[in-house]
């Protein structure tokens, strides 16, 4: 699963993308937030409800099943054009 971090998240996490293999128990978007945030520092922002999640280029709620998604994006509040 390719995970992308947009905007300020890429700065706080230290990278814009990473390839992750999800452990078996992590099936929803919300669970993915928690799992990533626990792994190491800089990821804590991901549990902020203002950070939206897109799975395969569609916005999803925290309860959505994302186990089979190829791409996940974490999107902080937008900054305007």
């Amino acid at each position, binding site marked *: 699963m390719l995970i992308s971090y947009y*905007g300020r998240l890429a*700065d706080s996490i230290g990278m814009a993308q990473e390839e992750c293999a999800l452990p078996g128990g992590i099936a929803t978007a919300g669970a993915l937030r928690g799992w990533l945030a626990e792994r190491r520092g800089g990821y804590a922002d991901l549990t902020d409800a203002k950070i939206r999640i897109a799975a395969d*280029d569609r916005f999803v709620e925290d309860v959505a099943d994302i186990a089979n998604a190829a791409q996940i*994006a974490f*999107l902080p509040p*937008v*900054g*305007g*054009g």
Partner: protein
Amino acid sequence: MQRIRISPDPIDPAAELEAFTRKSAGSGAIVSFTGQVRSSSPGGKVVKLHLQSHPVLTQSAICDAFTDSPVLSSATDWRVVHRTGDIPAGETIVLVAAAADHRRAAFEAADFMMDYLKTEAIFWKKEICEQTSAWIEPRAQDYADRSRWDNHGR
């Protein structure tokens, strides 16, 4: 016809207006807005902006919002050209254009598009000044401007 273009290429506002005006001859009224990177900000002298978009969601969200908008339904045509990546101070970030039969509709269409782009469009913006850099979120004024359209045409 490509109404929305998001790309790291520099924007030539005059060329865009020329192409749009040629297509819209006889509409009566054409309004364009050009937004440039300001050379100073509360953070100091601005070197450049970095604009990030999402490869799919940015364009599709703009398209959905504008296609459904009662404000834009009064326009005969409209265009959005938005630059991404590193944009030096003084260069153009965004150009919008709207054509309509009467000038009020053209002004409102361009105004509405800009208010949307400044608050809801999926862009992340980092301001790189000489000494500092910071991610920017919309100003309170931007949200106030955007809310003017909430009851438009209802």
